């Protein structure tokens, strides 16, 4: 008691109000009953994983050195020499993969339950932005390992930016810090990966959640409008998800430990280069058509996808028809994405 008084004197907040606020915002947060279903936990999963990524990423910076001479060697050092190093790296690497998987699942769920509809259009857009930010942070992170595959993925990947109209060349020059992938590229990617992108992502996550809280969780069709409070039921759910994810990522790390590959060699391009699996659909698509068509088509798709909540009402006035349009578009996108991914996976 004494300590509390001592502290409140020096940190004069209204304690009663604080407790009340805490109760209202967190402990008693009204959660719709459908959230008891595990299917609807996919929104919290990326958040939990993002937390792990921040933690493990921070730990990786204890040993990682972003220079062409030392990047690969320091990753080898972390993986092979440092106690638990392979685990931290494994968590980070599997975390990246699981984060993208869970985002895809989350988006699929949101899309098919039409949770993006008015008045939640902005949150959909923010979500899509978050998804692309996650892809970008994964790409920059992958480049940091500086092995043959990641080096060439970086070279090829950054080259595409050139195709962006008007500012493409400038953007490429900015990203690479020069005409080719070099020392500057690595430090730039490092800064992007550990400072800038996490900062931006953090901001958008914050926005995403604030908007979510202001609207309240959308209730899908067929569920009644009943609520329960955040604590303890949903709180436990988060704990379980956290424990499960950590167990899953640790197990995956033991079974499939992160490799270190062959050191990057700017003079030799490997025979088979592939980006990480989440770029497979785009990669496959770009291989099928000319670069220009590919990039513009991809950009068009991204735009439609991002602004779907506003496009949907333009297609029809009827809710029923909108739903049919959306379902068709969603299923088609899913199928095409799956086909392209599987195709790229099995074709060398």
């Amino acid at each position, binding site marked *: 008691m004494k300590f509390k008084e001592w502290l409140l004197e020096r940190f004069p907040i209204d304690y009663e109000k604080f407790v009340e606020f805490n109760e209202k915002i967190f402990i008693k947060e009204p959660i719709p009953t459908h959230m008891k279903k595990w299917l609807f936990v996919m929104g919290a999963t990326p958040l939990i994983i993002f937390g792990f990524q921040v933690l493990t990423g921070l*730990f990786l910076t*204890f040993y990682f050195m972003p220079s062409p001479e*030392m990047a690969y*060697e320091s990753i080898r*050092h972390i993986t092979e*020499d*440092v*106690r*638990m*190093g392979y*685990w*931290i790296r494994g968590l980070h690497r599997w975390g990246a993969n699981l984060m993208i998987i869970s985002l895809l699942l989350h988006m699929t769920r949101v899309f098919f339950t039409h949770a993006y509809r008015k008045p939640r259009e902005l949150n959909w857009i923010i979500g899509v932005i978050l998804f692309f930010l996650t892809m970008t942070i994964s790409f920059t992170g992958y480049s940091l390992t500086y092995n043959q595959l990641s080096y060439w993925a970086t070279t090829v990947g950054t080259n595409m930016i050139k195709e962006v109209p008007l500012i493409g060349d400038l953007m490429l020059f900015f990203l690479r810090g020069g005409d080719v992938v070099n020392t500057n590229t690595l430090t730039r990617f490092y800064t992007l990966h550990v400072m800038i992108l996490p900062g931006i992502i953090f901001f958008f996550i914050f926005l995403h959640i604030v908007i979510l809280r202001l609207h309240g969780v959308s209730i899908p069709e067929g569920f009644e409008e009943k609520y329960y409070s955040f604590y303890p039921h949903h709180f436990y759910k988060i*704990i379980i998800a956290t*424990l499960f994810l*950590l167990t899953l990522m640790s197990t995956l790390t033991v079974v499939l430990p992160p490799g270190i590959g062959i050191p990057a060699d700017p003079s030799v391009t490997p025979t088979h280069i592939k980006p990480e699996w989440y770029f497979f659909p785009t990669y496959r698509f770009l291989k099928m058509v000319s670069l220009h068509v590919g990039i513009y088509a991809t950009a068009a798709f991204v735009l439609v996808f991002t602004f779907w909540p506003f496009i949907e009402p333009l297609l029809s006035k009827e809710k029923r028809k909108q739903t049919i349009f959306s379902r068709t578009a969603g299923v088609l996108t899913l199928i095409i994405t799956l086909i392209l991914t599987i195709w790229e996976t099995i074709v060398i």
Partner: protein
Amino acid sequence: MAEEDKKVNRREFFFKTGVFTALGLAILAFFRNLLLYIFPERKEKTFHKYLVAHEKEFKKDKRPKQINIGKTPVFVVPYDDHYKVMSGICTHLGCIVKWEQDKDRFFCPCHKGEFDRMGNVIGGPPPRPLDEFKVVVENHKVYVYVEDKVRSPWA
């Protein structure tokens, strides 16, 4: 009824204790692993033999022999049938001592530290005798044990 309630309560208590102990342990295990990661492993030091002299070098001349191990000056001092090998770095403030045959002593010019043939302090400020190497004689060759180091950015 009250009895029943108590029983249920007790069972409930044990159950909860069990669950949250497990959770606590899991969190502890997680942080233990994290801590192991942060603190680099202290490897046990290993040593290799380093040739410093042949016994026959001292047949005629019992004078301490100076050689360098890397950049460290080292003195090999024969006595009786043994050898003492000492670092030439003064234990006071790290200057290099030199052997003065006429005075039968090691002398440090910086603060006039004096050591006898066996490295004991006989004058001046040095706080302790000269540092010694572990010596082994094999086949008339005098070796000292030198710490293993590797050429790596992580040593």
